């Protein structure tokens, strides 16, 4: 039977991997236990704005799916907003690289990519960021060093290690962030990549977005070690468990992880304890958990409500927050209009971009 889900770590907000039992490596260096990020009012406002943008964007995508504008698989990020926003806000766009799986809309929005071209990709239009040929799961922005958008569970971890390899090879000071889920954390290639990343001290942060369910299978039904932050230990990759519903905890842990990696210590693993409110994809009725469970998380740990509290504590008024909400609704409505009305790719595009060169 599934254990009750407790996304918010009960005791500490962040938990560094427990010291290994006495042994050859018990005293090897470890990152410090991170502290919550001290955000300025402006930063808090920006976090709020981005998280609400993701939430409203995804809700709209869900609606457009229902109306038949979006087809195929569509995996919504609702509930997990604090993870992408907390991490992406610590990165340097154009220098650090990012790669993720198929639940990728949130990461792109958090990286400042235009909601219009993302929504237009979801509707399969010429103006989409992949010119309509990728869809929900396959979006990229090489300009932002956002490398997708990958549909094979776990593949992005090896590819991300390759991006980290390129940072090191070019000595460009960049760090790769490779996001994957609790489901991908059981794929063999993840561990092949852990091994080489640590062996070669690649600059990469592995981020497990543990939203508790790999499609319909809960973590403890699929993972013999369900404390996923420990999954790097046998490769000497330190792990930190983080409250992924709290954007300041996420950002604080990311700062610590970046410091660790940039100092040349090799990779680090962050386990973000989070929760997805919606089904795995649009076609998932989510019968494997109760409505009460979802409702309890929404009421107790909602990441957006969390930031709202921080804002009010920082002296931001309800009215100021409402202005942001209205502004975001407008941005999302415009993105949806754009995505519904822009033309589909021209027929000849079927044959373009198969290869780069002519032979």
């Amino acid at each position: 039977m599934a254990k009750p889900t407790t996304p918010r770590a009960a005791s500490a907000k962040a938990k560094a991997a427990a010291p290994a039992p006495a042994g050859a490596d018990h005293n090897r260096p470890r990152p410090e236990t991170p502290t919550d990020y001290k955000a300025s009012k402006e930063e808090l406002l920006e976090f709020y704005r981005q998280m609400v943008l993701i939430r409203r964007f995804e809700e709209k995508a869900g609606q457009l799916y229902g109306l038949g504008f979006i087809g195929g698989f569509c995996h919504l990020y609702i509930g997990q907003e604090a993870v992408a926003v907390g991490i992406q806000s610590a990165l340097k766009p154009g220098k650090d690289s990012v790669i993720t799986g198929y639940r990728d809309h949130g990461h792109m929005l958090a990286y400042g990519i235009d909601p219009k071209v993302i929504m237009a990709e979801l509707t399969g239009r010429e103006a989409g960021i992949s010119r309509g040929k990728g869809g929900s799961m396959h979006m990229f922005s090489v300009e932002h060093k956002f490398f997708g958008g990958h549909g094979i569970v776990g593949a992005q971890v090896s590819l991300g290690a390759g991006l980290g390899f390129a940072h090191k090879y070019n000595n460009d000071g960049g760090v790769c962030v490779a996001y994957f889920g609790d489901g991908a954390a059981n794929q063999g290639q993840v561990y092949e990549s852990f091994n080489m990343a640590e062996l070669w001290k690649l600059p990469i942060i592995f981020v497990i977005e543990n939203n508790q369910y790999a499609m319909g299978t809960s973590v403890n039904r699929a993972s013999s070690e369900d404390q996923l932050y420990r999954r790097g230990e046998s490769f000497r990759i330190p792990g930190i468990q983080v409250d992924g519903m709290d954007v300041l905890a996420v950002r604080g842990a990311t700062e610590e992880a970046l410091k660790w990696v940039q100092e040349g210590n090799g990779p680090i693993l962050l386990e973000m304890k989070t929760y997805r409110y919606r089904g795995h994809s649009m076609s998932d009725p989510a019968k494997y958990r109760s409505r009460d469970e979802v409702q309890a998380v929404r009421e107790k740990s909602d990441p957006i409500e969390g930031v709202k509290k921080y804002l009010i504590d920082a002296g931001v008024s309800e009215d100021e927050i409402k202005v942001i909400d209205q502004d975001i609704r407008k941005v999302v409505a415009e993105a949806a209009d754009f995505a519904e009305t822009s033309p589909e790719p021209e027929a000849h595009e079927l044959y373009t971009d198969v290869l780069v060169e002519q032979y």
Partner: protein
Amino acid sequence: MGIEIKMPALSPTMEEGTLAKWLVKEGDEVKSGDILAEIETDKATMEFEAVDEGLIGKIMIAEGTEGVKVGTVIATMAGEDGEAAPAPAAPAAAAPKAEEAPKKAESGTSKLASEARATVQDPDLPAGTEFVKTTVREALRDAMAEEMRADERVFVMGEEVAEYQGAYKVTQGLLAEFGDKRVIDTPITEYGFAGIGAGAAMGGLRPVIEFMTFNFAMQAIDHIINSAAKTNYMSGGQMRCPIVFRGPNGAASRVGAQHSQNYGPWYAAVPGLIVIAPYDAADAKGLLKAAIRSTDPVVFLENELLYGRSFDVPKVDDYVLPIGKARIMRPGKDVTLVSYSIGVGLALDAAETLAAEGIDAEVIDLRTLRPLDTATVLESLKKTNRLVVVEEGWPTCSIASEIAAVVMEKGFDDLDAPVLRVTNEDVPLPYAANLEKAALIDAARVVEAAKKVCYK
């Protein structure tokens, strides 16, 4: 009873070697495990140990001798009773047991052994071009070295490519020249390092990923297809994956079913990939250089049995060949033999035999399996009106099947006979020498098929 020490086979494909150095001399006492000699194969220098105790009798093959066939008696040893082995020059005195012992089984792949050359020169080469005799192995290494000198982004990664100098010695010397930043030994983890390579390519580098053999690339095929081949299309032309996956492909020799498969048709089925399978050393060099320069992902299929064969490579600066162009290896007018990789040698051998019987065969080396140069094949068919495809691989859904389909669709009116496929038997490759032999193609089967389509 005396013992004959014979030239050992030190790898599945070794047929002869160099007796580089004797570490014992006549009259020395040796015991089991002592090193007797150093023997150089085309892949490595190996130490050859004594199995038995005794006194070294006569050394039959002097050190430094090249081309010593496997099984040749290289020395004799007196056994424990001190009795020297009979001189091998007197076969009548051979121990009766030796007669009963089964002779060294001949591998089925010995039938694939051909060093047949193209009878026509590459028309793009200027007249008077000098040629250098080069093995396929060296040609591949030279291609990588030249491209690494020219482009800092190029690096080589794989199992045993650096310190070991390559499991099949293809990357020999690269570590010394380019260092461990650019010549990288990986753990045995194909899926992982194929993904790291593809990711590095997406990040702007030019990886050359060596698979020890393509059999092991099955573990990595997800990255070759899902990550490398589809990226450019899925991203609307935004994200590139310029990578070369290379290594030996096809049957080796007596290594059994899991180590003997031709993946040409598998990869050639995938849009977004370039698939190259060269035959001779010049093509290996010119096409590998082109593959490394290509912005598209390339699967580069080599052949272990060809690595040690020597061919003429033109001595020109920067010898780069076009991808996607077949090559007429031998012009002819009666029948077209289409092949690629190791099959080309058999097709050329068959053409020789056919010529003696009055059939003038044209031999085409496809060189690139995707994109397939169907124009060259159809042009040849127009002239000969008969076609046989020769493929060291399975028949079903093969390159041969594809050529037959293309010819039927686009060259139907030019056909005077059905297209025939000469391929391996439709079974996993067996180990037993006689069965292996029966499973693999040979020149005789090509001759037979060619006569059949010529109604002779």
